[in-house]
């Protein structure tokens, strides 16, 4: 897979592999207390850099990781969405986080739907989960919009060491859901 050319496109968004130029927007995002409340909390800039490096490293070693989400109209980096299954993770996840200034526009489900297609069609996954902190009602709304449902409680490995709700669905369920919506 040519990671430099890999790109998913939706009506309003481009999804591509993260790059060095994403760092300023990435660092600002993970410094936002509100936006990171349910995904591990704020990170100082040096830790943010390590996070971006780890995401890229994951792309190159595993062949998949979260995409950078770019708003077509503005060219802005507005979040990270996509497959995520680090060592010890409770299943093959498609996850999302969007910068606070762009909440409420349906960007998370739009980007995540493109990623669901990609992991099922290209990576050959047979199921997808979303790990959601119990208090994160916004993400449960996104999961519901994707046709996923609550499955069980699960445990996230270190360094998170947290209990999470596991939402998700199978590939067949996703394809039926996509077909029904046309």
């Amino acid at each position, binding site marked *: 897979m040519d990671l430099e050319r890999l790109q998913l496109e939706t009506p309003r968004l481009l999804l591509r592999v993260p790059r*060095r130029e994403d*760092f300023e927007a990435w660092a600002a995002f993970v410094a936002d207390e509100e936006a990171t409340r349910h995904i591990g909390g704020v*990170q*100082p*800039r*040096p*830790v*943010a*850099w*390590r996070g*971006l*490096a*780890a*995401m*890229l*490293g*994951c*792309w*190159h*070693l*595993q062949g998949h990781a979260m995409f950078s989400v770019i708003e077509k109209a503005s060219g802005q980096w507005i979040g990270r969405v996509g497959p995520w299954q*680090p*060592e*010890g*993770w409770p299943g093959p996840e498609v996850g999302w986080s969007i910068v606070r200034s762009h909440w409420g526009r349906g960007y998370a489900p739009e980007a995540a739907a493109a990623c669901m297609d990609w992991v099922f069609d290209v990576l050959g996954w047979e199921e997808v989960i979303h790990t959601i902190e119990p208090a994160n009602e916004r993400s449960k709304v996104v999961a519901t919009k994707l046709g996923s449902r609550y499955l069980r409680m699960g445990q996230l*490995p*270190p*360094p998170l060491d947290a209990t999470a709700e596991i939402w998700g669905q199978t590939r067949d369920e996703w394809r039926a859901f996509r077909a029904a919506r046309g």
Partner: protein
Amino acid sequence: MPQGPVIETERLVLRPPQAADFERYAELLADEHACRFIGGSASRAAAWRKFLQMPGAWMVQGFAMFSVIDRATGLWLGQSGPWRPEGWPGNEVGWSFHPQAWGRGYATEAATAAIDWAFAELGWDHVIHCIDPENLPSQRVAQRLGSRNQGPGRLPEPFAGARIDIWGQSRAQWLARRAAVA
């Protein structure tokens, strides 16, 4: 896999990290004694996230530490090479080795090749090594490399508060010493 140089020394191969290196890396990070000076031990899941930073940094910066491989056996011995994450106090060439690989001069041999490479390819005019004041084995490696203790320094998060001395030397000192040895 990250693209990058392959360097051969008498006993070692230095190349960018690959996924297959993780098992031995995780062994190193599970060994409390062996990693007490490099951030402490970590579970397998936490080790994976840390491991990803190195190939990611190769992608972001075009340099990072190399995996150091035993030429004779193909075994992963450790990592050594240039390292300058966000907020770092200078251009480091560092090293950390699997406990089974200690005491054979591998760190000095690998770091020598890595410093040659960093001065030749990265345009650095100074190299540092951040070393815990109690880490006598690493201080001996620094001395063998011809570096001197330049005094206490500070690391950024997630290592803020760690006690370290900054050892180092200039490019001119390195080249003069290499010429004298040759």
